[in-house]
Structure formats: C-alpha cells, structure tokens
C-alpha cells in the first residue's frame, strides 16, 4: 500500500516528468567511452591529476604532477575545483575517470532542473516553475556546453545558480541565519564551479536582490540589506583559497596576461543573425568572418518571451511595481549581453576589457540570455491565470523542447581504446591548459629521460623513493660537486631540502629553462622536493578556513543568536 501511494505521488508530481524529460536529453551520454568535443579530454585528464593529488592527501590539489610531460603544471591552482571534487567522489566510488566526468555532466544537469523547478515553485508557483525550468534547461547553449564544448565548469555552474537564487529568496522571506549561511555556501559553490559564470550571474543576481528588497516587508528590509552585504563578503572570504591565487599568482607567474589580452574576444564577435538562428554543429568558435561552427542561437522561445516582456514593460497607465522593475532590469541585461556579443560593441571594449578579456570568446556571454529569459518566462507566466496560464506554459514549453531535439546528440564517439585510467595518470603528456596558465619560465615539449640528472659533476646510486604530485623524495651519491636537474617545472611554492636543509633553487638555466636546478657538494644526499603554499596561498587558505568554521558555528548556534530574533514572521 505504501509503495503504491509512493508510486502514485511520484507519477502525479510534475518534477518527475521534468526529470524524465531531462534524462532524455542526456541519452547520448549513456555509452561507454568518450565523445569527441573541444575540452572533454582535458577535463578527464585534469580530473585524473586532481584525484591523484587528492588521494595523496592534498585537500586542495594545486599541482598536476603527472601533467606537462611529467614535469607538472599549476593548472589545478587556477582552474575551478568543485567539478573535480565531485568527479573525484564518483571515481572514489569505483567509476573510471571517463565515466566520472560523464556522471558530473549527467548529475549536474538533472539536479539543475530539479533545483530550478523547486525554487521557482516555491517562489512563483507550479506553472511558472515549469516554463522557467524548461527555458533554463532547454536553451541551445546548454547543449553546446555539453555536447560540443564539453565545458565541464560552465555546465556544472548551472547546478548552483538556482540554489544561489533559492537560498537568497528564502533568506529574504524568513531572515533566518540558516538561510543566510546556505546562501553563502551556494554562492561559494558557484564561485568554485566556474569563475566566468559567477561574473555573468552577478548582474542577474543583483536585479533579484533589488526585486526581493522591494517585495520583502518593510520591517525586514534593513536586515535583509545588511545580510546581503555580508553575504557577498562571506562568500568571497570562503573562496579566497581559489580566487586569490588566480587573480594574483596567475598574472605574476604565468602567461595569462598575454593570453587573456582580449584579442581572442575581439576576434570572435557573433553576428546578430546567428543569435536568432544558427544550425547545430560541432565546429569551433567564430573568427573574424567565419561563423561559429557550433550554434550560437539564443532559442526561438527565449527570444519570444524576451520580446513579449518588452511589450509588458510598456504599461504606462499602471503603477510600477517590483515585478516591473525586475523585468525591466532583466531586459536591460538581456539586450546588453546581446550588444556585447556583436561587433558594434567593439568601441566599448577597452572600457570593459577587464571583464571580457577573461571570457576569451564572445559566445560565452550566451549564459546571460539564458539567465534572464528563464526568469522572464517564469514571471510572465505568473501574471496569467487559469486556462490562459496553462496554455501559455504548454505552448511555449512544447516548442522550447521540440525545437532543440536535434541538439541532443554528440558527434561519433572517440574510438581510441587507450583512454583508460592508467592512460590519464601515466601516459597523458599535455597540460589540459591552452597555454594561459603556463609558467613564464619555460615550456616543455618532450618528456625527460630521467627524473634526476647531473648537469655538471657526477652522481651515482640514484634512488627514487617517492614521486608524488607535491612531494619528490630521492637520494643519490655525488662523486664530485654537482649541479642537479630535477625533472620538475618550477613554480613558486616548490622548495628543495637537501639532507634536511632548505637550499636555493635556480630555474632559469639556459639549457633547462623553467626546471628546478640546485647545487650539491660531494657525498651521499637525501633530497625532498616539496610543493607547499606560498605566503599568499597560506593566507588565503587560512581566511577560507576561518570563514568556513565561523559559518558552521553560525549554523549550529543560529537559534541562539539575537540579531535575527526581533523579526516577526507572518
């Protein structure tokens, strides 16, 4: 009987059907192996390197020891870590690296649908939630992120966007500290999922804050505002371990300044026609004249709701309410994002270069039309009632889904059989990076013949005890005074201890640029090369840790805190 009632309630729930619909979209991923795409190989290799470092005891993996022909690479230090933590969890459960990355894609897509629906239902009701979720999940760019670009971070971040909005909504309604802490955690998760998506989300989030401010009761407004200010502060503090090295060390020690100069953005503007309609394809990003190989269309239904909303805004006779303000802000963001994807915005590029140069491609701004249109769709539905509301939702949802069915596919799968876990850990020679985060001191184009060798002098009895990602332990006997070359790419944080004594490192030798080199005297030596935190990273880690502990304390003792007590709930 209980099973029957559970079955009945499941089949009656809308979320079940949304879940099934989302599952259909992901059908092409339920195969073994990997599909051909822009970045999938890089993400699997990065996950393997991340997992290896994590398994070695590095809670925050920052050095990909097996990457870069075995010389190691700091890509993990600068790339968003949260998708890799999730992938590592799946690998820990026994899935291969290939399958783990696929599971991250699958679960994040399914959960994004679930959370979007739950949040919108909580806020606006069932029908707005259905349309909002469909527009969020069935935007063409979402499928580009999965099947063409395999942009793990960008795709994964879509899981946390509804959570960020939901938790902020709950906080604005109840002004309870637990919701505030949840919202900080979800903001942190979004920051750690993809550094670009958080930047695109901010304008929409700001518009939502404004809306919630005006819709919350006057007695709560002051506390809401204070909470929101501290919310950002806490979210940033919680994630300092990621973004501080990214902003400071990447610019100081890698080629990122040169790489993210903004040239690629200016070379990849889209044409307006292609925002309206462009066919499904698997090519790369647009160049000066060549249209993008993949679709860059916003979606017909997404366009439709935006233009309908534009009409809604022209209601001069009525009083302007928070909904009007919110839609107005969303429409502004929508059209501005379109504008900045087009060549006509080039004259403004120098002003906004500090943001857009990191985007690399103009098409990355396609995230913004998704974030604005799904909210607009849900809000417009909310204005309708009864049969008209149901018709509006059914009609638009139907077309939003149907018109993307041809996008639910991958190109033929990669038939290479050597993509095993062992391949990713031991034979993959790349960096998973396109060059932006390569250390400035040197490039490596071939694997070294030995881990340790003497450039000058003579050494024997080389005995490698450990060669972990961040710890290399070995011993040798120097017959003469020797200059030792260790096959490790230098990066701030590497330290060499010879017989327990820290010694200076040279990494700018002409014959071995960017490689760790040090001098030893004759005799037997035990060497430990350790990749540890710099002062900056240590400081950032401490700030994150303290914030995390404080948030936990707040969560545990939330009921006893006075600040929130004098709010009267309806």
């Amino acid at each position, binding site marked *: 009987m209980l099973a029957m009632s559970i079955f009945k309630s499941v089949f009656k729930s809308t979320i079940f059907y949304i879940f099934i619909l989302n599952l259909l979209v992901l059908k092409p991923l339920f195969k073994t192996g990997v599909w051909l795409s822009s970045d999938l190989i890089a993400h699997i290799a990065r996950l393997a390197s991340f997992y290896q470092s994590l398994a070695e005891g590095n809670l925050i993996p920052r050095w990909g020891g097996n990457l870069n022909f075995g010389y190691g690479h700091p890509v993990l230090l600068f790339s968003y870590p949260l998708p890799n933590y999730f992938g590592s969890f799946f690998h820990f459960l026994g899935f291969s690296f290939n399958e783990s990355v696929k599971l991250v894609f699958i679960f994040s897509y399914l959960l994004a649908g679930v959370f979007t629906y739950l949040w919108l239902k909580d806020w606006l009701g069932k029908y707005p939630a259905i349309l909002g979720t469909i527009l969020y999940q069935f935007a063409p760019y979402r499928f580009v992120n999965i099947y063409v670009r395999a942009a793990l971070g960008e795709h994964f971040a879509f899981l946390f966007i509804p959570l960020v909005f939901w938790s902020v909504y709950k906080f604005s309604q109840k002004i309870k500290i637990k919701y505030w802490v949840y919202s900080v955690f979800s903001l942190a998760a979004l920051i750690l999922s993809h550094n670009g998506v958080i930047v695109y989300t901010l304008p929409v989030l700001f518009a939502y804050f404004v809306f919630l401010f005006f819709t919350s009761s006057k007695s709560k407004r002051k506390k809401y505002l204070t909470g929101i200010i501290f919310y950002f502060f806490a979210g940033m503090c919680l994630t300092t371990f990621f973004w501080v090295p990214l902003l400071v060390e990447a610019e100081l020690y890698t080629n990122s300044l040169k790489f993210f100069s903004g040239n690629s953005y200016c070379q990849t503007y889209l044409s307006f026609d292609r925002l309206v309609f462009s066919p499904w394809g698997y*090519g790369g990003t647009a160049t000066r004249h060549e249209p993008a*190989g993949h679709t860059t269309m916003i979606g017909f239904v997404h366009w439709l709701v935006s233009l309908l909303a534009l009409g809604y805004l022209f209601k001069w006779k009525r009083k302007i309410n928070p909904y009007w303000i919110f839609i107005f802000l969303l429409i502004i963001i929508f059209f501005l994002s379109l504008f900045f994807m087009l060549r006509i915005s080039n004259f403004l590029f120098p002003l906004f270069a500090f943001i857009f140069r990191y985007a690399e491609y103009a098409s990355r701004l396609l995230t913004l039309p998704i974030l604005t249109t799904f909210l607009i769709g849900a809000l417009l539905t909310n204005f309708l009632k009864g049969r008209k509301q149901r018709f509006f939702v059914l009609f638009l949802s139907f077309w939003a889904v149907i018109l993307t069915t041809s996008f639910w596919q991958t190109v033929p799968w990669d038939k290479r059989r050597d993509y095993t876990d062992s391949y990713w850990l031991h034979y993959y020679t790349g960096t998973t990076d396109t060059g932006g985060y390569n250390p400035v001191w040197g490039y490596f184009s071939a694997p070294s013949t030995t881990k340790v060798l003497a450039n000058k002098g003579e050494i024997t009895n080389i005995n490698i005890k450990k060669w972990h990602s961040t710890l290399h332990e070995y011993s040798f006997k120097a017959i003469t005074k020797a200059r030792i070359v260790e096959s490790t790419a230098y990066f701030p944080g590497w330290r060499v201890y010879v017989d327990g004594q820290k010694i200076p490192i040279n990494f700018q030798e002409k014959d071995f640029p960017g490689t760790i080199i040090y001098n030893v005297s004759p005799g037997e030596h035990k060497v430990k090369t350790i990749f540890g935190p710099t002062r900056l990273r240590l400081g950032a880690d401490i700030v994150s840790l303290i914030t995390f502990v404080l948030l936990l304390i707040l969560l545990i003792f939330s009921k006893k805190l006075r600040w929130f007590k004098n709010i009267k709930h309806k």
Partner: protein
Amino acid sequence: MISYMEAFYQTLSKGYLFPRWASELNNGYGSSILILLPPLRNYLGASIHWLCQISFQTITKILFFNLNLIIFPLCLWLFYKLKHKAKYWFFLLAVFFFTALILNNYPADYFYFVFSFFSFFLWLTQQVKRKLKLALTYLALFISAFSLTAFYWLPATLEAKEIKSFLNNIKQSPITKPSPKVLTALTNTEKVEFIYQHRPPFLWYGYELNLPANTRLQFHVFNYSGWQVFFDSQPVVLEKPDQENKNLITFTSPPTAGYHFLEIVFEKTKVQALADTITFITLGLLISYAGYVYFQKRV
C-alpha cells in the same frame, strides 16, 4: 523549381536565415537568383523537408497549387473582421497573411493586390463611424507587413538590375565542368605556396598562403557583389566580372610578399543589411506589441 528549393534549403540549413546565395547552382559556381525569387514557397518546402524528410521533388508536387488562392481571400476576410473587431490578434493574423502574400509574389506583381487591398480598405472605411481609427489600423497593417518583408522585396527591387546583369553574364561564361571551389594563381603560379586551407564551411573560404607580391588569384565561384575578399582582415578590390576572368572571383594579392591569411566570404550588401535590420526590428516590435496587449489586460 526543385533545384532552387534544394539550394534554398541548403543555405538555410547552414544558418542563413534569409538565403541569398545558391552555392550548388550553375555547376557549383553559385548563383544569386535566390534574392529575386519569392521565398514563401521555399520556406514552406524547407520546413516540410526538415520536419518530414520528404524529397524536394515530392514537396514541389505537394505545393503545386497557387498559394495566392488561399492567402488572398484570407487577407480580405481578416481585413473585413478588423472593421468590426479591432482585436490585436486579428491585426497580427492580418499582418501574418499579408506578409505571406508579399513573400509569395515578385515585387513587380505587388501592384495588383496592393491596389485591390487599397480599394477594399477605402470601401470598408466608408462604412464605419470611426473612419480615422480604422484607416490608421490599415495603415499600420500595411507598414508592418512591408517592413516585415523588407528582407526580400528591398534587395529584390534595388538589386534586380545587378542580378539580371549577373545572370546574363554567367550565361556567357564557358563553364562546363563542376566547380572545384578552389583557389588558383593566375600569375606567379609556381611561387605560390598553399600552406593551409581551413575546414570547408559554407560561404566562407580561408587560406593561409605564402605568395609573391601582386599575385593574381582566382576563386572558382561566380562573382557577385556579396562576395568579399580579405587579406589579413583588410578588404581587397575584386576585378570586375567579365569574359576574360570568366565572371569568377578574381583579385590581386597585396604588394607585400610573404605569408598572408586570405578569406573569401559572402557577406550582406548594404541594402541587404538595411533590409534585414528593418525586418528584425519590425518582428521585435510586433511580438512586443502582442506582449503589450496580452499582459496589459491580465496584469
């Protein structure tokens, strides 16, 4: 007709919302005939082909009848309904069918139905009290439909002369073999080094070349004003199409020898860009108008 529809579909399916270049016509040397042809039948055919995967031959048979016979009376009925009920969706439907009528006829034939409609409007306006309101509604309808279809009739009218001259010229071109769609050097033949040809997309051809200064090059596609050539993102002037260059895209490389990135691309002419902008703006305004009325009543 079948080959036009097929060519139309091919260009449309590559993301060109308003197909204007038929790449595979004329033995692969291409044609700008699509600019002149009324596109409604081709859009319908392309939609049916995409939805049902039916051959273009069958689709041409299905669409054998004159669509005007359906659209014209529908327009009249909607105009008549507007006289009694000035409902916004009647207005939008009327715009829709008027648009369909425009897209199903050559600009030269517009006079007939425009004259008929105008007479009909006059007759209807005479019968109501609020004459000005109805006249303005019909005027708005007229402007909307013509603005919405600007993407077709504006280039088809303003570029008609050029297209006819293009079609005449290519008739005289002694092209018998299918176009290889390749670039050949007419001068310095042995010194030109083709480093890399970019993947073959549609209506965009990219070459990385190492070549002497002022090399005369020819691309095996008929020259129409939409075609443009860029050396290192700088436009170059194309030779005027004539019998000597077989009406093919012919041009001379920059006066600096060495590595160059060459792009041959079919872009919108100024008239086409203006026409498309008018269409997009009108479409946006009409949808916004629907939103304005729809949500004005219910919010």
